[in-house]
């Protein structure tokens, strides 16, 4: 099965000499939910811009479902739906018209474009707003409008560039549900995001890009398995004994009722509980101090700096 996206030695040097991409290569398999992560200016948006023809590449090649963009870009574009970072629709146009027109640009006959627009505007909770000028929508609604617009031609590959930026938690969760649903239905999804818990919750595979180079690439599960230590925060029912020590573990007291424990690779959390029971500490809750992916991301980006 051909990959949904195959990038080989992709490079981009902007006029002025800034090298945004230094020959990156990666593959996204069909049906994948893939995260492209990196700090600001790492090259994520440049990569996406090249895939959807808004940025001209300097070198390398891109294939979308086996279609080379240098050979048949219109053919490749038919497979792609793009949700950019910035709002890029006419603020004076009606919500419904924006989605229907986009269908027209992909060659959908008007009745079918209208039918699809209704389907996706309803799915994203915007159908009631179809006759409103798009400038009247809230920020979260505008983001959902761009998703509906990107889906109207039912692309096999959906690329979302920070789709939940500035969206409230409830709305973010409902967008996650929606994206998982269309991924389950067969759409390959590539996501860039600054919310690493979002990538961990949604994506199966990941590429971390920094200074125009891929610094990590693989399945999120494998990457997390390589983490050498994790820090857990515990809350106790009563006041903590003074001093609080656990044999074999580094313990840091946060306040009278909570403390942090570092668990190295090879150690088990059961041993922590055994030690705590022996010390008479009754635990009411336990959580990771930081998002695990975030820990790895920071480590990779810092080591590359």
């Amino acid at each position, binding site marked *: 099965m051909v990959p949904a996206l195959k990038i080989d030695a992709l490079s981009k040097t902007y006029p002025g000499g800034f090298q945004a991409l230094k020959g990156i290569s990666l593959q996204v398999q069909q049906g994948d939910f893939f995260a492209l992560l990196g700090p600001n200016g790492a090259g994520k948006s440049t990569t996406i811009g090249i895939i959807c023809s808004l940025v001209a590449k300097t070198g390398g090649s891109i294939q979308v479902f086996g279609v080379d963009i240098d050979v048949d870009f219109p053919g490749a574009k038919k497979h792609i739906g793009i949700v950019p970072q*910035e709002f890029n629709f006419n603020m004076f146009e009606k919500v419904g018209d924006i989605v229907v027109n986009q269908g027209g640009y992909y*060659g959908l006959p008007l009745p079918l474009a209208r039918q699809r627009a209704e389907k996706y505007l309803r799915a994203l909770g915007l159908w009631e707003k179809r006759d409103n000028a798009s400038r009247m929508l809230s920020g979260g609604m505008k983001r959902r409008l761009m998703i509906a617009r990107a889906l109207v031609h039912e692309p096999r590959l959906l690329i979302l560039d920070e789709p939940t930026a500035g969206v409230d938690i409830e709305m973010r969760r409902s967008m996650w549900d929606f994206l998982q649903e269309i991924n389950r239905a067969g759409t390959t999804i590539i996501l860039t995001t600054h919310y690493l818990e979002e990538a961990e919750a949604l994506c199966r595979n990941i590429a971390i890009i920094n200074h125009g180079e891929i610094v990590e690439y693989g399945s999120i599960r494998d990457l997390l398995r390589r983490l050498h230590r994790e820090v857990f925060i515990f809350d106790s029912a009563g006041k903590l004994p003074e001093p609080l020590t656990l044999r074999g573990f580094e313990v840091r007291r946060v306040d009278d009722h909570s403390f942090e424990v570092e668990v190295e690779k090879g150690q088990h959390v059961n041993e922590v509980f055994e030690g705590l029971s022996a010390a008479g500490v009754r635990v009411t809750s336990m959580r990771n101090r930081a998002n695990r992916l975030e820990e790895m991301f920071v480590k990779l980006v810092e080591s590359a700096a």
Partner: protein
Amino acid sequence: MSLREQYIALMTLLRKEIRRFLRIWPQTLLPSAITMSLYFVIFGSLIGSRIGEMGGFRYMEFVVPGLIMMAIVTNSYSNVVSSFFGSKFNHSVEELLVSPTPNYVILLGFLLGGIARGLLVAIIVTAVSLFFTRLPIYNIGIVMLVVLFTSTLFALAGFINGVYANNFDDISIIPTFVLTPLTYLGGVFYSLDLLPEFWANVSKLNPLVYVVNAFRYGVLGVSDVNVTFAFAMIAVFTVLLFFYSMHLLSSGKRLRQ
């Protein structure tokens, strides 16, 4: 994209363009009707009655074809320049650029939008002019051809201006400092026969002279220039600007990074 899909994309863009100028009709259609009515009243009725005949016709009859052409030129130009620059400014042009729509369809869509507005304004101004004078049509074929070619030519010029424009000032510079003076000096209000030979020859370097006179020939049957030559000039410039516009779109100048 199949031909049918390309046709759908073209019609989508044209529909959007027509909706745009109809939605803001007080800015796009009304000003020409008001301005031209004032021209008809002031130059045609008040001053024209004292001028007498020009080119063998009453002054009002003489100026009407030029004024209609003036409306077509300014409206087809400004429709495309403002629409295309607007879509660049708010980035909605990316909706087209990321789609499989071929460049020539994108160009045609904007051009047809400009032509449609030019034609609609021409109809409005012609209807208004009928309140002031009769409008004999000498050759309807020539009238239609000149209208079509001229609106296409100036829609193309507006497109090129839209591609190069970086801000809203840039889209008003050409209409204000180039198009309007050339139109006023293009024989709309006078016959070149009135000018000394030197200035009459200088005037013939003005492309608007050919557009106005070719249209006047179609309506009244008189022209200061050779009509065949005028058609040839309009056609040559239309073809040149079309290919230059296509080059701008293909190279992605000011559109793609």
